[in-house]
């Protein structure tokens, strides 16, 4: 399984990529493999505020439904609208076309607390 080294991670199997002042958020290959084929992704609206640890969206796969939890608190500055019609991009390209939202964090310290790639790989190995 692949976990890019330029990303930060959460123990809930989300990844974050720094891009200027915002952070792009998606779910990891591990999460995708657990979920199987994804059929629906419900995301917040641009401008919505999210709180770390709170639900910000939902993923329906063929076999289950899962919540998406905000990795950090912040404002949603972009939403991947393409997932509305092509949710399978999360399966095929979880770190690229399968991204979910861009967040502008309100608490810089929360970014510091995110897992490094090494720490995330150890977390996955323990699952």
């Amino acid at each position, binding site marked *: 399984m692949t976990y890019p080294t330029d990303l930060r991670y959460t123990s809930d199997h989300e990844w974050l990529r720094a891009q200027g002042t915002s952070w792009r958020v998606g779910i990891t290959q591990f999460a995708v*493999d657990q979920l199987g*084929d994804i059929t629906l992704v419900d995301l917040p609206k641009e401008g919505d505020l999210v709180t770390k640890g709170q639900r910000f969206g939902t993923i329906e796969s063929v076999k289950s439904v899962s919540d998406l939890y905000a990795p950090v608190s912040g404002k949603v500055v972009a939403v991947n609208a393409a997932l509305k019609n092509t949710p399978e991009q999360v399966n095929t390209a979880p770190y690229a076309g399968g991204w979910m939202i861009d967040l502008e964090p309100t608490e810089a310290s929360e970014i510091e607390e995110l897992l490094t790639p090494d720490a995330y790989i150890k977390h996955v190995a323990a699952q």
Partner: protein
Amino acid sequence: MDRLRTPLHDVHRQLGARLIDFGGWDMPVQYTAGTIKEHRAVREAVGLFDVSHMGEAYLRGDAARRVVDTLCTNNVAGAPNGKAVYTLLCRPTGGVVDDCIFYKRTDDEFFVIVNASNTAKDLAWLRTHAGGACNVEDVSEATALIAVQGPKAVAMVDTLSDTRVAQLPSFAFTEAAVGGVTCLVARTGYTGEDGFELACPAHLAVQLWDALLGAALPLGGLPIGLSARNTLRLESKLPLYGNDLDDDHTPLEAGLGWAVKLDNREFLGSDALRVQKAAGLQRQLVGFTIPAELRAVARHGYPVVDRTPGAEHAVIGTVTSGGPGISVSGAVGLAYVPPTFAKAGTVLTIDCRGKDVPATVVSGKFYKRPQ
């Protein structure tokens, strides 16, 4: 405790299957293609399913016919030799012990295939009620079971057989060598597609699987995991024991009255079922669909609610199976509801994790295969 393995376990690993714990068995939930592609392969070509985790038994002896007639809601005992019959085994209350298929070989020999999760319970049930009058032989471990399903399944298996199995009518069975392996070949399945289920000795399962997969792949066929098995059966409105059927619901409530033959018969549960039939049902299993544009899926356990002001009950039923449609649009599911909500066209309200979603009751299968 180590999970149980079917004789095809190594084959699944080699094929890159994702294995999960399914009732104590280490089973493929999906292969590398994934559920949606596997599902479509069965609808459009052919799919292979390892269902060797299911239980099998023989009932033999002079009293076998009488014992079977006492246990089965359907007329298994009176079926012609060579016929497979879907039936329920009921408790005296009418609740369902299991749903299964009996294969009548002769009046004194019946073969039965039962749900994996119920094998121990069913064997005990059969033995208790046989009471020594007929021999009940558990052959679950010695038997492998492979389902071959899809529009290309019949011609494909026929080509691999020494017998013209394509001529077998629906729910008939015969013995034939397929890929050189002697099997019980039954024209049955759990997908809504045409096809066969093949029972063979466990030690020959890999030989049979390899012959089938070798023929299936060039036809666009795939090995199919349990996840697609579930989406396929649900689209065809086939009930799943443990979800849609259980000890607390009767076959009449589950809409399986066609498999309950009450006329001039006495069997376990027949009295309770007659009473229920005469009194009318309090709840019924219905199929429902949710349009795609609502972007909602109702799953097992979600409550069916009545938001009418002053409604007698807020919760009127429960979804027993549900998921996204793959060959049909939107989401589909099954729910137990009162008869007043069971008519086709009725709009139910399902509480999907805090969101009220309208779902329409439909009669018949969600997916009907092209004739």
